[in-house]
């Protein structure tokens, strides 16, 4: 998996994340892992559900936006958090991510809760190709 860093000098009331992945699949998997880490202690979420999630968007940065927005939506609708995700990103505009997501329902009795993300913002949203692969920045509203 790639690398993620929570940035503290950007929108300090919210959560800015810098993501790095060796390829786009890795970048989107890393984004999902960072989001799960933000919401809960992932080790306290049972792996009891498998979901196939497909998201499409006209641009690559909007694909990242929609991907994270989908995971936040499912956190509220189904109360599920995904702690292991295999993603496959394809297309050249429109773009698509197809993911196999494993995780489980949030159970306050055994899940260590952290922040409750409200939404993905477009503030400073960027997905760029770099020498080592792909880098992205996204700010999540907490």
């Amino acid at each position: 998996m790639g690398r993620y860093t929570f940035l503290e000098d950007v929108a300090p009331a919210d959560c800015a994340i810098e993501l790095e992945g060796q390829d786009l699949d890795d970048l989107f998997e890393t984004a999902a892992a960072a989001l799960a880490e933000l919401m809960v202690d992932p080790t306290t979420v049972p792996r009891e559900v498998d979901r196939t999630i497909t998201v499409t968007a006209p641009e690559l940065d909007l694909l990242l936006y929609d991907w994270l927005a989908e995971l936040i939506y499912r956190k509220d609708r189904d109360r599920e958090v995904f702690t292991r995700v295999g993603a496959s990103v394809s297309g050249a505009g429109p773009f698509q991510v197809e993911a196999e997501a494993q995780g489980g329902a949030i159970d306050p009795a055994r899940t260590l809760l952290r922040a409750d993300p409200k939404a993905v913002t477009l503030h400073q949203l960027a997905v760029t190709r770099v020498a080592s692969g792909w880098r992205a920045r996204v700010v999540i509203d907490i």
Partner: protein
Amino acid sequence: MRVTRVAECVWEIPPTEKAGMQVPARLYASETLFSRMDQGVFDQITNVACLPGIVRAALCMPDGHWGYGFPIGGVASFRADTGVISPGGIGFDINCGMRLLRTNLTEAEVRPRLRQLVDALFAAVPAGVGAAGILHLTGSEFRRVMVEGAAWCVARGYGWPEDLDRIEGRGCLPGASPDAVSERAISRGMDQLGTLGSGNHYLEVQVVPPGGLHDPQAGKILGVEGPGQVFLMLHCGSRGFGHQVGTDYLRTFDQVMRRYGLTVPDRELACAPFRSPEGQAYFGAMTAAANTAFANRQLITHRVREAFGAVLGRDPRELGLSVVYDVCHNTAKIERHEVDGQLQELVVHRKGATRAFGPGAPDLPEAYRELGQPVIIGGSMETGSALLVGTARAMAETFGSTAHGAGRTMSRGEAKRRTRGETLLRDMEARGIIVRAASKSGLAEEAGFAYKDLASVVDTLDRLGISHPVASLVPIGNVKG
């Protein structure tokens, strides 16, 4: 960036400082608060000044800090006929707001049962990530909530009829359009009514501290009798439903701006002409979310009354557990204000800013009309909050707006490095504040040192004359998500 002090606690950035600025940017802050404002505030408020149709100036309140798109504490007004509406100027937590409840109780009466009361509140009001609400509605009933707001709750016994008179817009803003709301938004938020959320949302038991009643005459009108009196303060919004409405329309506006020939300096400021189909659809959906937030706070009020009644073995009416007021701080509303000597219909965006209408405003309940609108400013969970009233000066200077909180000064990560949730919980308890939190790390993020000094913010509002302090409130019990 050139910033000039134009009056006491008023700073201005002229439109020449950034390409595209239509109007000046104006920041309201004492010298101390101004010196502590982060760079993001200046970048963001000047970005707001670039938006089409903005009138007079882009404003930032004394609690302003770096947000996403608008700064937190941002106020911007656009002509309803030629201006825009921007979801980024309202935020995802549509109608996040504050509600204050008074009681006839004193701290001396409550203190012996305080832990039991806080436990009962924590059990009665679901909080934290993934919390399920207290009602399970059908889609058609939820659509009625979107239109009727707090009145939907009161009609079903979740509140008292007189509560409605003490809510901004009587808890039901006109123009809600359930048809403009996505099925995703409904399915996301339908089961969350009556939940608190997390982050900086809270439910507090508070008291007026010694010397905390600053205007006894105004206090009498608002039901604030004096030091030792117990209050409850609630801070939350429209939950996942509003968050999804914001998400949906931000994506829509990002795509339609080109069609209207609009450009913005930050994509989060994506906007559409207010009178366009997209602008009107968003306004209808946003208003639906705002009404749902009023319903959410109304349901929580009902649960608070039940919990207090059960623990103390007394009828909530006997406890005098009535609503002082309920104010929004993330909305866009149609209001008439004077611009260039003429009354104009404006779309007033407030992002982390509170409406603060002065005496005589027709929207105010009769009991408060001569006094001005109550303004509830939530500080940090450790240091307290404040009750103020709006002024005529606010009407003239800030489109009837004021601050909404203390304003954050520290990142969440830095706060967690400085303290642990368990440590903070113990420290607060040692100071007589009983805390129940769904997330210990979330608790650490909200430590008092992560915020500006609320007293400085309130003092600045008073010096500016845009709000008048009535009472200070300090926490003795806290429920957090």
